[in-house]
């Protein structure tokens, strides 16, 4: 009797789960939901994909106000500026059809591309272009959105020609003029924040907070049109969810995965593309605070930390070791010889520490943003490696917002691990932050030579000369061990078989216009 009852209980528990499950799927007259979706999906599949992203976009979708790299990455498809970056790292005219630069580098003349329309149907007029540039150099609220544009002294325009006159030559001006051209009336009505309108190959359809963002191909795009009709970005904050989304067929492409994660995917269904994140991951040191105000201590850490060991242990060997604040995608500026400027040498590191007055080692704290697993992992390996020179590491894991305000804004930290990027393909962005008075110099690096080099480089009209100056700045950072440089992280992308055309840019963007189903 009792046995029967026990069996009854077990059956009931299982039945409660299984039968109701089957039952509920049965009631929808559709016993195999996905089987039913597949035939429906096959014809549309040719022109539609869903991409999984790990975080929601910025509050505002207005491209001039968006700050998060993840937002720019997605919205890249919606907007275009006078100039537009290409996958090879060049700039080509977009909203402008042509650009000429005077000999002295002080006058830029743009010709407006004829017949362009915005996604909302309005024609692209010169006043929209001027409005967009003015909006970014407007200083009425203190600082301009793009401070570098202050170099523009005068703007003159007719219906199809725009002439910019600079106060001094600036080699990187065109990089900044990739800024999105927006329709003036629409933007001034405050609609860009929630319903952005641009001129890019895809147009924004809808956004559901924390759920999805939908784009559709813009039929009147001036250039090579996108191949897919519709692209959905689905926000799934946890990695398991992303992987299951791929496995279940809900997602077709997920960027920024690690080797451990991609190894869970079946190679019959997916293939993996490897690019790089285009960022400088480093143990950033607060150069103003003891013990890191002493160059010897910083050098000691540089000798003691084995970046290849970190890449092997925490990143399964994927990643490019770096030795300075520049990554290989900027091939023109990148100086590979700096990577091994500090070979792993524990003895040397101990000597330097002793010279600096720490013969018995020291204690230090690494503050890491807890939501960035790669940085947390790197901190753990570093903490192990530093034991060899008697440096005792405490890892302080903080929430992202806390990191932003305490470490980045208030500079109240000893050391931290993060990845710094450059958003509009200007190498200067990676280097300008180490100038003594730079507002974003959160590491408090201060070096007179460096400042002099920067002053010279930032107003240098000659590209070759500027490149040399940048390289000198990189060397300066390495020699003074401003930070302990680790790597440019690998960016693994899982793609469903049959989907092709992924192009890597030297920027943190995902160009969906080249993607298509075979």
């Amino acid at each position, binding site marked *: 009797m009792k046995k029967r009852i026990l069996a009854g209980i077990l059956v009931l528990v299982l039945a409660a789960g299984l039968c109701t499950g089957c039952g509920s799927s049965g009631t929808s007259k559709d016993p195999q*939901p996905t089987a039913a979706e597949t035939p429906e999906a096959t014809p549309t599949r040719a022109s539609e994909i869903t991409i999984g992203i790990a975080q929601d976009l910025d509050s505002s979708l207005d491209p001039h106000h968006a700050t998060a790299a993840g937002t720019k990455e997605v919205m890249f498809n919606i907007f275009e500026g006078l100039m537009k970056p290409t996958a090879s790292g060049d700039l080509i005219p977009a909203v402008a059809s042509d650009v000429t630069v005077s000999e002295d580098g002080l006058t830029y003349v743009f010709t407006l591309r004829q017949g362009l329309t915005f996604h909302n149907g309005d024609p692209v007029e010169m006043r929209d272009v001027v409005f967009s540039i003015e909006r970014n150099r407007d200083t009425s609220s*203190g600082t301009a959105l793009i401070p570098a544009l202050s170099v523009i002294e005068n703007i003159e325009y007719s219906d199809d020609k725009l002439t910019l006159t600079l106060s001094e030559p600036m080699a990187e001006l065109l990089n900044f003029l990739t800024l999105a051209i927006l329709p003036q009336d629409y933007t001034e009505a405050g609609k860009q924040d929630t319903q952005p309108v641009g001129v890019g190959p895809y147009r924004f359809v809808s956004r559901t907070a924390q759920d999805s963002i939908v784009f559709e191909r813009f039929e009147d795009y001036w250039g090579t049109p996108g191949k897919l009709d519709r692209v959905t970005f689905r926000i799934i904050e946890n990695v398991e969810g992303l992987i299951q989304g791929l496995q279940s067929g809900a997602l077709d492409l997920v960027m920024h995965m690690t080797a451990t994660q991609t190894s869970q995917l079946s190679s019959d269904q997916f293939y993996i593309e490897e690019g790089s994140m285009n960022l400088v991951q480093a143990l950033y040191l607060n150069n103003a605070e003891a013990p890191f105000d002493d160059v010897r201590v910083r050098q000691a850490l540089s000798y003691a930390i084995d970046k290849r060991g970190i890449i092997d242990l925490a990143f399964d060997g994927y990643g490019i070791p770096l030795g300075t604040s520049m990554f290989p995608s900027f091939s023109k500026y990148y100086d590979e010889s700096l990577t091994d400027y500090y070979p792993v040498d524990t003895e040397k590191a101990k000597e330097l520490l002793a010279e600096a007055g720490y013969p018995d080692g020291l204690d230090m704290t690494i503050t890491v943003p807890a939501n960035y697993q790669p940085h947390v992992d790197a901190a753990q390996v570093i903490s192990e490696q530093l034991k060899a020179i008697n440096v005792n590491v405490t890892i302080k894991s903080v929430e992202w917002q806390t990191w932003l305000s305490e470490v980045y804004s208030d500079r109240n930290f000893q050391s931290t691990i993060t990845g710094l990027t450059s958003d509009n393909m200007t190498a200067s962005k990676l280097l300008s932050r180490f100038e003594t008075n730079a507002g974003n110099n959160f590491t408090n690096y201060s070096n007179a030579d460096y400042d002099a080099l920067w002053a010279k480089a930032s107003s240098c009209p000659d590209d070759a000369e500027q490149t040399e100056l940048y390289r000198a700045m990189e060397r300066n950072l390495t020699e003074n061990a401003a930070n302990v440089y680790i790597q440019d992280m690998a960016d693994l992308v899982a793609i469903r078989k049959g989907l092709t055309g992924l192009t890597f840019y030297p920027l943190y963007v995902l160009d969906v216009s080249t993607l298509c189903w075979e």
Partner: protein
Amino acid sequence: MKQVFRRLGMLLLTMIIVSFFTFLAFELVSGDPALARLGTEATPEQLEALREEMGLNRNFLLRYADWLSGFFTGDLGESYVYRIPVWTLIAPKLEVTLLLAFMSFVLITVISLPLGIWSYRLSGGVPDAIGTCFNQLCMAIPPFFVGILFSWLFGILLRFFTPGNFPDLHSSFGAAFRHLFFAALCLSIPRSAMTVRMMRSTVIGEMQKAYVRTAISRGNDRRGVMLRHVLKNTLTGTITFLAQTMAEIIGASVVVEQVFGIPGLGRLLVASISNRDYPVVQVIVVLLAFWVVLAGTIADILNQKIDPRLRLGGDSE
């Protein structure tokens, strides 16, 4: 009538206190909503301007008073992050979470009430030991893990639903319901196990009481006594327990929503906290408080219906 007013007053007071402490908590933790919005490239001037615009520079109590008066006049404010009215943001998520909570509550009740009574009948002996073991196992497995397991088994292998693609609740209710069902099941397993265990011990306790012995000695069979007397006495405790469950389901749904990719209130709450989106957090927390108090109130009313003794005391705490 007096009762009703007293209850309403309590409800209001609870919500005000909760909202105040939430407000206070955000005042104390580090993190700046202006910085959260502007990101790493913001200049101090921009930050200052935005703080001014958002009213963050004003006195804390003033801001709270503002919020409170807005709340009572039906103006819940605007999300810092999404710049849309808080209610527009919350409403669709609330729908999903309520449905999820309701489904798992039904599941818990349907699973645990009969099992609880049965498990009493089993008490003592090997099957009981096995049952207890199984019960403990169910209690111990974290919903997070069960969620991953279910997604894999029912989602990827059996394809009852598509993990990573939660269908729209209105346009494809069937598919959304299926998706929610497995999440609800995952939520209800540990709570059901707890309810079964609670009921079992209550029933055992009741069966040893004098009135049961009397009833049986007067010639009633055990089954009849169980249904007519014991069950009724067990029910009040169970209802209170289920009310707590109701409150806890919402808390647990935070995790389950993450695993199953359900766009619900829990996910919104977590994201809003990390984005320092105070207006949204504020409203969700108040809603949760309301939910908890409501569940308690319903339980009290039901208990008073079942047990007349509670009606005299006026309060069943």
